[in-house]
């Protein structure tokens, strides 16, 4: 490496590993001779399901299937990185970034390497946090909620299937220093995998992280936006540039500035492990027709280094039933029917304590999308009902769901003409077992002394032997 570089170039192929990208866009990006390819592979967006999966459970197969779907993205990226001699960094492996997810992606990386005859140094960075450490930090008052999150108690820690934490840039920097070419990491802050190499080479932390925040969603920050296309970032000493690699897209001041708001509670500050990027002084300039220049992003370190914890706990098992209602009188009496069904269920399953089961209805065509926030009150002529039963066992949930659908099907409301049945089922069987249900139960910040110690790095030589 040169003594002092003027710029570093980062290629972001896609918003989430598995979303895909055109081969031509990757080719154009590789022609620009990037210094690193980085890609985010996870998020809390899709809910807590993959975070909650127990090792050795039936659901683990679903995770394996899910991980296999990223092969089509992973293969060309591995080949491109190895043939160009640059690092490939994959963060938040397997959607949730636990050890199970990390192993899944690492195994796939090694399988592809074997098939393609690739040789490289692989770093695997774990992000699962020992529950005892969280308990100790909680007792020291070093664990604080992030927003309107339920209060954490030691019980919540014990109930968590696993606890992951978002790593910052430091573990990636250490793996790069150790000569790793392919880095697969557990849960990581989205910008960190893009910012690590520039920061290691002395580039401004505020600029590198802000660029990472824009790059992590692929070409979503372009116009027209796409989660499945390549965005190219170039960081220099006092600014950075972003440009899509597909000539049909452009980055505009508006598309890039707009992205600063995306999925962020507050657009002015980008909170990252160990500090925040202050965007109050940021300026966006149209560099070329398709490229935007950003400057003024400032990093301010926190007095203590804090990492974000995420955990999920098992709520129970879910069975659902989907049905339609067309009879106007049945739609008119629907609220009453559902109330009666709930009452009937309580009576029928009186041996279960109320905390062992719950029943939920989604009424599409009425308030199925917004629930209690729905301002419109008149239902559609064609209503969809999703019956959802959650109980301590799958069998129990299915019994409840069957009871409820049968109850509503044959419920006799006043003035009923359609006495043969109130529901139209699109499927056989009517009741669909959905497996375990999880909820996010920890979403907290935890103070740590060393940004590296919770995230152990394992190095392996792949393709030697």
């Amino acid at each position: 490496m040169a003594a002092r570089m003027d710029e570093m170039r980062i290629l972001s192929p896609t918003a989430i590993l598995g979303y895909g990208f055109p081969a031509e866009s990757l080719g154009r990006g590789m022609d620009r001779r990037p210094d690193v390819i980085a890609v985010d592979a996870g998020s809390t967006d899709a809910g807590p399901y993959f975070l909650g999966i127990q090792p050795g459970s039936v659901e683990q197969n679903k995770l394996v299937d899910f991980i296999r779907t990223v092969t089509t993205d992973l293969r060309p990226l591995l080949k491109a990185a190895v043939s160009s001699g640059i690092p490939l960094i994959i963060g938040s492996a397997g959607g949730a970034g636990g050890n199970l997810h990390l192993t899944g992606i690492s195994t796939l990386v090694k399988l592809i390497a074997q098939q393609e005859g690739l040789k490289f140094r692989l770093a695997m960075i774990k992000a699962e946090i020992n529950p005892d450490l969280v308990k100790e930090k909680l007792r020291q008052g070093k664990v604080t909620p992030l927003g309107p999150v339920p209060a954490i108690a030691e019980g919540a820690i014990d109930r968590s299937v696993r606890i992951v934490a978002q790593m910052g840039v430091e573990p990636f920097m250490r793996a790069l220093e150790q000569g790793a070419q392919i880095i697969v990491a557990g849960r990581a802050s989205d910008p960190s995998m893009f910012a690590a190499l520039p920061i290691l080479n002395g580039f401004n932390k505020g600029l590198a992280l802000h660029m990472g925040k824009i790059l992590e969603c692929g070409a979503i920050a372009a116009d027209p936006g796409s989660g499945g296309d390549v965005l190219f970032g170039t960081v220099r000493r006092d600014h950075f540039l972003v440009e899509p690699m597909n000539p049909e897209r452009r980055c505009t001041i508006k598309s890039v500035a707009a992205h600063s708001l995306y999925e962020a509670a507050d657009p002015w500050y980008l909170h990252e492990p160990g500090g925040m990027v202050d965007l109050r002084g940021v300026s966006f300039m149209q560099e070329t027709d398709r490229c935007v220049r950003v400057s003024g992003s400032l990093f301010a370190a926190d007095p203590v280094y804090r990492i974000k914890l995420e955990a999920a706990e098992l709520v129970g098992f879910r069975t659902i039933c989907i049905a339609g209602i067309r009879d106007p009188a049945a739609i008119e009496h629907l609220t009453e029917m559902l109330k009666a069904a709930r009452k009937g269920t309580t009576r029928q399953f009186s041996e279960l304590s109320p905390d062992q089961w719950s029943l939920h209805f989604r009424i599409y065509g009425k308030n199925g999308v917004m629930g209690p926030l729905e301002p419109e009150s008149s239902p559609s002529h064609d209503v969809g009902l999703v019956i959802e039963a959650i109980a301590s066992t799958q069998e129990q949930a299915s019994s409840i769901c069957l009871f409820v659908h049968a109850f509503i099907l044959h419920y006799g409301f006043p003035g009923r003409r359609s006495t043969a049945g109130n529901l139209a089922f699109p499927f056989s069987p009517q009741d669909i077992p959905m497996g375990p249900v999880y909820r996010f139960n920890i979403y907290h910040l935890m103070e740590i002394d060393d940004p590296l110690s919770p995230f152990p790095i394992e190095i392996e030589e792949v393709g030697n032997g």
Partner: protein
Amino acid sequence: MGNRTVTMADLATVIRSKNAGPFLITLDVFFNDEGTFQKIRDAGVITPALIAKTYQIAEMDIHELTFFEPAAALKITLKRWVSSAAPGDTDVFGAQQHVPLMNMSFQLDD
């Protein structure tokens, strides 16, 4: 100068909602042009009280309400009534909670 009633849909090219983490939903409004943005920001018509009324929620459940000059945008962040994918949730990604904001109407000086 007269008053007229406008809806957010009249004033903005993009109105969207999305999770900001599993416990918050964030709403973004990108106004038609810089002039519209400045007019709405300076008119002081977008208040926590109006948002609370629009979503039938308490003002204390509004986590953030800020104008963002670099994108001529408005951001409003609300507490989720149930966390993402927890029992009873209707919108795991939070991507379809923007319509009340789109239809929200208020008085504006001409």
